[in-house]
Each structure stands twice: as structure tokens, then as C-alpha cells.
């Protein structure tokens, strides 16, 4: 996995973190110039102003206390400070059957593709997956998921376009129970987190699931485009309010040079990244491991 992540994050590493290493070695000591450069590097990595300030503050504090001066040691401290921001609580085992996953997010983040990846990921473990096409709004969204279902060879429950998404979900859960599926993955329409009507529609879907299978949905995944800036924090906040998001799927990490916003989301909302998407194929999915993630970020060629 480390290899894959290293490759996927090549851009991030090249632009952001090689700059850090560069800054560390070009400055002899920690002065204002150096800190400003560090600030620039982090902010241009979408880390966010507050989080950047906090990292820099801690970094300066520690460097002063521990009297660290060499670039290598400073590098270590920085790595530690960033890793700290990403610590994830241990995963609970997925014992429920069917294990219900609700996938939400704003428009165009890659929800449907991510669902295909998740389905593939579970199928590889020998699990039976059922997809629910609850994005009944966007033109051809159902067809898109259907094509993925065909490629994956998994079952899909769908209604007509513009049908009530909650009804699709209801049918999907019924089918999952009777067909003995291990996982149900629910695709929802993309919606901007500022649209209260659409967000409450999502709330309704959540309640339908809860009512039909107590304890479900067992996982609510928010799909976030790694290219998104600080707005992703607002997105996360609103989706948490509506449907208790408990993990993040960070997509398009193969292209964008950044991804720093996950630090802000973790810091402000405590939601960890669980999966990352590194390409357009259904095999381009990785489980997120913060330790290896940071290692990958800092690794030199």
C-alpha cells in the first residue's frame, strides 16, 4: 500500500513537502523568513489558516524547547506534529449484516465512482454487495451506477428518475435482507451543503434506514474532492449535522497537488479519512493509514 500511496501522492510530495524540505535545508535557523515560508507551503497545500498557525506555533515551541537546529531533526518534528493531527481511533469490526453504508457529498466529488470502488473492495473480501441507486435527481445518474453494477457483477436496486430516494432505499434494504447481502451501499444525489431542503431530504433517507434496520446506517461516508479548499470543512460540518457522517472518502488525490484540507477537517470536526481514491478505475482505492500517509508525504525519491 505504501508504494501506491507514495505514487498517488507524488504531486503533493513534490510540490508541498519537497518545498518544506527545501525550506528546511535552505534556512540555517528558525527565523521569521523561514516561518513565513513554512506558512506559505502549508497554506498552499490547503491546510487552512488556523491549522497552519497551530502547526507552526507548536513547531516553533518544540524547536525552541528541544533546541533543535538541524534540518533533519526539524523535519522529524514537523512530521510528528502533522501525524498528531491525523490520529484515527481504531476501527470497530463490521459485524452487522447487512452492513449499511450511506454515501453523501456535494456535486461532482465522485460519489458514484467511489461507490464502485468500495463495492469492488468488499467483493475482493468475498462479500456480497448490493447497490442502491438513490440519486434519482441527476440526469443519467441511475444509468451510471447501473453500468458500474454490471462491471462489478453485483446487484442493484433502482427506481425511475425523479422517484423518491427514500423509497429506493426502503426497497434496497428489503432486498438486501431477503437476498442475504453483506453490504448495502447507497448512492445519493450530490447536493450543496447550503441547501436546507436537500439536506433535510438526506435526513429523511437516514431516518428510513434507521427505522428499517435498527443501528443502521453503520457507516456514513462523506465524499470529498481533494481539490476542494477550505470549503470542504463547511461541507463536512453540514453533512455531519444532517446525517452523522463518520468517515471520509477523499477522492482525486492522484491529480491534485494538495489534500491538506483533511487536516482541518480532522482538527475541527474529528472525522477521520478512511478511504482515498487514486484514479478512475474501480481498483484505484486504498484504505487510509495516517502513519503511512505522512510517511508517504515526507518520503524522498
Amino acid at each position: 500500500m505504501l508504494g501506491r500511496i507514495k505514487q498517488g501522492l507524488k504531486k503533493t510530495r513534490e510540490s508541498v513537502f519537497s518545498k518544506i524540505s527545501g525550506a528546511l535545508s535552505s534556512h540555517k535557523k528558525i527565523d521569521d523568513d523561514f516561518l513565513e515560508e513554512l506558512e506559505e507551503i502549508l497554506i498552499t497545500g490547503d491546510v487552512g489558516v488556523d491549522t497552519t498557525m497551530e502547526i507552526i506555533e507548536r513547531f516553533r515551541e518544540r524547536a525552541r524547547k528541544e533546541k533543535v537546529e538541524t534540518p533533519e531533526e526539524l523535519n522529524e518534528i514537523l512530521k510528528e506534529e502533522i501525524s498528531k493531527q491525523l490520529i484515527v481511533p481504531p476501527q470497530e469490526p463490521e459485524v452487522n449484516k447487512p452492513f449499511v453504508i450511506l454515501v453523501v457529498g456535494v456535486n461532482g466529488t465522485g460519489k458514484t465512482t467511489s461507490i464502485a470502488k468500495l463495492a469492488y473492495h468488499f467483493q475482493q473480501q468475498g462479500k456480497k454487495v448490493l447497490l442502491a441507486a438513490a440519486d434519482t435527481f441527476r440526469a443519467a445518474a441511475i444509468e451510471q451506477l447501473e453500468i458500474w453494477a454490471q462491471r462489478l457483477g453485483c446487484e442493484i436496486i433502482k427506481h425511475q428518475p425523479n422517484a423518491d430516494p427514500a423509497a429506493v432505499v426502503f426497497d434496497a434494504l428489503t432486498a438486501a435482507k431477503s437476498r442475504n447481502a453483506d453490504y448495502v451501499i447507497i448512492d445519493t444525489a450530490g447536493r450543496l451543503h447550503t441547501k436546507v431542503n436537500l439536506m433535510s431530504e438526506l435526513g429523511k433517507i437516514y431516518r428510513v434506514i434507521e427505522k428499517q434496520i435498527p443501528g443502521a446506517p453503520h457507516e456514513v461516508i462523506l465524499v470529498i474532492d481533494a481539490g476542494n479548499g477550505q470549503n470542504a470543512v463547511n461541507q463536512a460540518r453540514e453533512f455531519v449535522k444532517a446525517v452523522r457522517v463518520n468517515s471520509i472518502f477523499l477522492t482525486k488525490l492522484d491529480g491534485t497537488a494538495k489534500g491538506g484540507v483533511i487536516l482541518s477537517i480532522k482538527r475541527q470536526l474529528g472525522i477521520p479519512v478512511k478511504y482515498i481514491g487514486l484514479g478512475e478505475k474501480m481498483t484505484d482505492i486504498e484504505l487510509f493509514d495516517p502513519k503511512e500517509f505522512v510517511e508517504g508525504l515526507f518520503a524522498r525519491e
Partner: protein
Amino acid sequence: MLEELTAKLESTFKRLRGYGKLTEKNIADSLKEIRRALLEADVNYKVVKDFIASVQEKAVGEEVLRSVTPGQMVVKIVHDEMVRLLGGTTATVKTAGIPPTIIMLTGLQGSGKTTFAAKLAKYLQKKNRKPMLVAADVYRPAAIQQLKILGRSLNVPVFDEGVTDPVKIAFNSITAARQQMIDTVILDTAGRLHIDEQMMEELVRIKNRIRPHEILFVADGMTGQDAVNTAQQFAKRLDFDGVVLTKMDGDARGGAALSIKAITGKPIKFIGVGEKLDDIEQFHPDRMVSRILGMGDVVTLVEKAQESIDREKAEKLEQKLRKAEFDLEDFLDQLQQIKKMGSLESILRLIPGVGSQLKNVQVDERNLVRVEAIINSMTKEERLNPKILNGSRRKRIAVGSGTRVQDVNQLMRQFEQMKKMMKQMKNKSFRGGFGGAPFGIG
């Protein structure tokens, strides 16, 4: 859109305007706040740095410090610099001398190309053009199907050849367009990463084959610091002509808007502001800055009104308003005209002073539907003379419209208030009939 940035800048400006005299320290502190607000709004780091430097240079001049309202002067400098940053003048889409005009849409995955293609088609239709959509995204599952559905809903022809070579599809579509007397071809291409050499090469081949008059780069308005890199890469390979920013109806963004022009030199031409196919606006730098700085955008509002409001009806209405003869029939008419202008939220945001207040307010479009249903359930007599609405009539109307008597009462109260307002306005200079309607905000 942009409320968060607007709110932060507004408070800084308020303080600035409050100072009788400005010291260099006042200015420096304010600039620090502005800098932070811009960075938090995802404006590119380098752009912010240059922006602050140039505002600072202009703001500490003697002229500002000695002027009667130094704070106001600084606000003006910020305003002017921002307009400059956004490109100064309004950029339009080129038209070909000999039709068809070919417009090619490019961008990353999920930026909203397909939706924008449909919006652009509708926009051109309104301007009496005859557009055609071309489905050249052969990679994303069901992308062709999506464009076809959108085309059908607009009654715009969609050219597709299924999943084959996009270069060929693009080329063949031009021939088809000529045969069908189409004047504008809108080419929807697959989303791709700027670092995907093979896919970028494909765009270059399409470009060389069909020589589009206009290449637009479609970017997600929520993009972070990377917006600039991506735009730069696309500009390098394709030398596109303009930028489209989508999803501008959410909150707290605009960073990309402020950065892309500054870095690539390519103007922003359109913005997408909602879920409906009407929710597209031409981009005007000065108006955008007014919106960012919380000054509203009346010009766009008036234009939208002109576009969709029936002039004759409006004049008749104005007459009635002057005589304070406004009845429910007119009210219904007005509602329907406003609905034509696009989503209520996007309209309200254009009104000065409303933008930043709307931050946490949601406009429920369904309220409008409810109001319409209530009025539709009245008899003609009741609409013309609402005074006759007694309890039993109201009950009947509530049942007929699927609402509660309270809803009917509330509407009547609002209507009475509105009439009162109009009587007051009768004596003042008052032009135009739209606006002022107490549509349900809540």
C-alpha cells in the same frame, strides 16, 4: 455566494470607516485581517500577497491619510484592486463570422461541464441562437446519456456517436451542425486531470481538428489553492479563452474566482449559480466585487427582470400600483414572473444588503408553490376583492389548496401589509413593479 468572505470583510471595513483618522498601524491591522479573510476563502497565496502589497502601497499615501474619510478611501482602494484582479471588464463569448460557432468545454472531473453545457445551451436559446450539444465524453459511464436527457428537456439537438474516438465525434458534429443550420456547437468533453498526459493530448488533437472559436475551462468554484495550478496547466496546453466557475451558489468561496484571472490572465466568462438550468450568469468583475464587498448587484437584478418580465404586464401593474388597486390576481401574476427569473435565492442575493444577511437564511421555494396554490384555489371574485374572504371561504380555500387555514390567513396578512406599503410608496417616486413581494423566507 461568498457570504463568509463578505461578512469578514464587512466587519473590517466597518471598523476602518469608523476611524476619524487613520494611522499606518490601523491600515496594517486591517490589511492583516483582509489577508486572513482572503486566505480562508481559498484565494491563492501568491495572489493574496500581491494584492495586499498593492493595496498597502496605495493606502499609505498621503492622499488617503489626509482625506476626510480615510476609511472609505481604503475601502475604495480594496474595491478597485479587486476589480482589477478579476479582469476589469466583462468578457463575452466570441461568435464566428461563418456559423457554426464552436465552443469547447474542458476541465477536471466533476467540475460540472455537462450541466454547464446544458445551461449554456439554454442561455443561447434565450438569445435566439440555435445551439447543438455534442457528447464527446466517452469515458465516464452514462455521460452521453446524461447529455441526451438534458438536451431533450431543453429541446436542443444532441449529437452523439456512442463510445468511439472523441476527435472523430467532434469533427463529425460540425458537419452535422452545418446540415441542420445550427449556429452554435457546444462540445462536452470528458473530465480529466491536468497531469494525465494522454488525455491532455486528446484535447489538443480535438482542438487542432475542429479549431474551436472558444475554449472554456470549467472549474469548480470550491476549488482550493490548486485551482491555479490546474488552470495554468490547461492554459499551457490549450490556451483556452475563458473560465467558467460552477457551484457558486454554496457558501464561502470565491477564492478560485479571485485567483484564476490573476494567474492565467484568462477572464472568467460565466458562473453557475444553482441547480436549475436557468442558473447561469455572465460574469461581470465589478458586479462580483460589489457582491463580495456586500454592496449587492442591482444591475444583474434589473437585467434578469428585463429578460423575463413581460413589459406590457409590468406597465399595467405599475399603473395599478400607482393607484393602489393591486389585487391578488396581480400578485399571482407577479409571483409567476419572478419565478421565471431563476431560483429565488439567487435573485435575493443580488439585492444590496441582503446578500450577507442571507447567510443562514434558506429560501424555501415550496412556499411560493403554496402561495400560488392558495391563490389558485380562490374564485375570481375573491381574488379581485379579497375583503369578502370570510371564515368559511378561507376554510374552503385551505382544503382546495392542500394548506391550512393559518396559511391562508398568513398570506392575506402579508398581502394587506404589502398593499399598505404600496400606499406609502405611492407618494414617493416609485418605478417598476417587481420586488417588494413578501415571498416566504424562513
